[in-house]
């Protein structure tokens, strides 16, 4: 892994991909997210950190409306993707999720072949006109997820038979195959060992060249390693949001400092 690229923090201003203004989320009577404002830039890795139950995963799931599948969940405020409100009535959440892909905490390959796992999204959205085009998409996605060399000889084998790290990279390939603009990752390495984690982190850094990546993580080292921007959540509030280097070396809020030095959490 090239350490230079990981240490480097590009500060040149980029287009805002997602803008969240004054977002409130309620689970029934519980006020889970309070007044969150975040600007997520294009071609940037943004990390959400914070103690368990602070609402970072909930907020992440608002960005592609996965919370719609939970009956008691209610979202208020604006979340704009490229300037368009994703909670507008005219927006089809299904279409939105094709644009905002998601990788989950636990690797969840479908009980299908590796090929079918990756081809799932393109098939649903009709991205390939022919079999050979689909083959190309599958190969390209698997290459982008840095797993092609390991699986190219057994594309017909079940995806559930891979190791944990391979499964997670397969899930990333699956998400990448639908050509999303934003990739949401909900603790993608929490079920992986350190080697697989390193592979996925390297991959995230490469994905940055094409996508805007938002990653929720419990590991502050991971946030420091892979992200350019970091948001610290605490008890449903966005406490601090800024350059990763800034947050980890010179946080403005005392709560952020307490958390990253291990005093709260």
């Amino acid at each position, binding site marked *: 892994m090239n350490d230079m690229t990981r240490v480097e923090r590009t500060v040149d201003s980029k287009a805002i991909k997602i803008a969240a203004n004054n977002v409130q989320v309620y689970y029934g009577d519980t006020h889970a997210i309070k007044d969150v404002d975040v600007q997520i830039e294009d071609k940037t890795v943004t990390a959400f950190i914070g103690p368990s139950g602070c609402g970072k995963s909930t907020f992440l799931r608002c960005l*592609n409306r*996965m919370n719609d*599948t939970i*009956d008691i969940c209610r979202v208020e405020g604006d979340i704009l993707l490229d300037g368009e409100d994703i909670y507008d009535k005219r927006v089809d959440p*299904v*279409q*939105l*999720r*094709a*644009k905002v*892909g*998601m990788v*989950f905490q*636990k690797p*969840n*390959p*479908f*009980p*299908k072949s590796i090929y079918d796992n990756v081809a*799932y*999204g393109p098939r*649903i*959205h009709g991205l390939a006109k022919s079999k050979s085009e689909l083959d190309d998409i599958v190969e390209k996605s698997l290459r982008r997820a840095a797993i092609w060399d390991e699986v190219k000889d057994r594309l017909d084998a079940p995806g*559930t038979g891979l190791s944990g790290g391979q499964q997670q990279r397969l*899930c990333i390939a*699956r*998400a990448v195959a*639908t050509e999303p603009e934003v990739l949401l990752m909900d603790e993608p390495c929490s079920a992986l060992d350190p080697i697989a984690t390193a592979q996925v982190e390297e991959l995230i850094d490469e994905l940055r060249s094409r996508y805007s990546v938002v990653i929720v993580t419990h590991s502050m080292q991971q946030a420091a390693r892979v992200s350019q921007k970091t948001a610290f959540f605490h008890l449903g509030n966005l406490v601090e949001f800024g350059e990763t280097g800034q947050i980890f070396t010179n946080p403005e809020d005392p709560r952020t400092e307490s958390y990253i030095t291990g005093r709260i959490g």
Partner: protein
Amino acid sequence: MALSWLLLILLALAVIGFFAGRSRALASAGGNVRDLHSLPSYYGYNVALTALVPAVGVLIVWLLAQPMIVNSTVSSLIPDQAVPEGSERGLIMSEVRRVAYGLDGAVASGAMTETQAQNGNADIEALTKTLKDAGQVLTQDITQPILVAAQKFRSMTSTGTVAMQVVVLALALLGAAFAYLRTHKEFRARNVVEQGVLALLLLAASIAILTTIGIVLSMLFETMNFFQLHSWKDFFFGSTWAPNFRGGSELSILPLLWGTLYISVIALLVAVPIGLFAAIYLSEYASGVTRSVAKPLLEILAGIPTIVYGLFALLTVGPALVSMFGDGGALGVGWMASSNAVLTAGLVMGIMLIPFVSSLSDDIINAVPQSMRDGSLGLGATHSETVRNVILPAALPGIVGAILLAASRAIGETMIVVMAAGAIAKFSGNPFEAMTTITTRIVSQLTGDTDFASPETLVAFALGLTLFIITLGLNIFALYIVRKYREQYE
């Protein structure tokens, strides 16, 4: 001493043993419970169980074995010439038993003394009169051999019973004494009781399994009798089912098997789509409230006795089908002559199987992890695409298992087909015709005045065994499929 008294004494012994063991354990620890290895009541249970279990076990075995031994001994006492022409030794034996019980009753009511009852040279006519006067039932005249046999029967039975009581009580006392003497604060009563409980559970499980084996064996013996009287080639490969109690029957299973399978296929064509779609709705789309109301309602269907489904077929579905497909019916096709038809039975059986399919499939669909749904929805799939492309393929092995289990129920179903399918055994593809199944033929061959030595009756056992093997095979296959693919998600 009657059996109930014996049992009461055993129970009393166990209760006394419980308290005795408990207090002895406490005494050995000087009244300090914490010095005991186990809780005091464990010592009590140990004494009670050691007294009770072996004694009751021997009692049960004795009760089962004694009549068999007595019967075979007494039966061999009856000389061959005492068995009349055209009668059987079994019939004579039941007469012997009747006389023996008659003597018992007469002695008990005071009509004769014990010495009179045991007198082997008694005047038979006088004895018969005494017995009849005492209100005892005798169906035929007592003969000398019968009387001798009956007296032997009585003496053996009473000796056996006394011996049984002595042995059982001795065993109970020995057990109680043994466990009582072992009771000491160091004694690991808790572990011993645990082993005793394990043995009881094991016994219950093995009784269930042994019963199954017993059922199969009894069917097997009758089936072997059948195949001695009737050619197995005709049974398995013949083409006609024409039982004739005067002999010369053609008894082939194939037309019946055809009817069974035809009706089952129609039933599955009804039950599988409806049951599966209901399961998908309930597990994937229905809200919690709908689900909590609809699922029990659907399962009420499963609690309806099949005879009620038979009535429903006979009174509602059959006439409705005739009014549609019959002569002068709504469609004007005149295909259906009577309400007894394959279609009627198949439809109603299908309705019966809906809750079976839906409830099993519902469980299986619910077992598909939520992460699968999230993964698919997160890729921009709609809910129905998720169900079709991810959930159903993941649940498919289980659903196939559920369908096979439903099929084996359809094949074994009796009441609906008895009432709705008709009684004509034939090969036909027409669902509007009456046909018959293996189960209905078993019923009709065994009901009424039957002679258990004729192939026309014994064929029922061969049919039953074949049916049992078919459904057993289906069940094993279904369970194999369900188990094999169950752990696929992890």
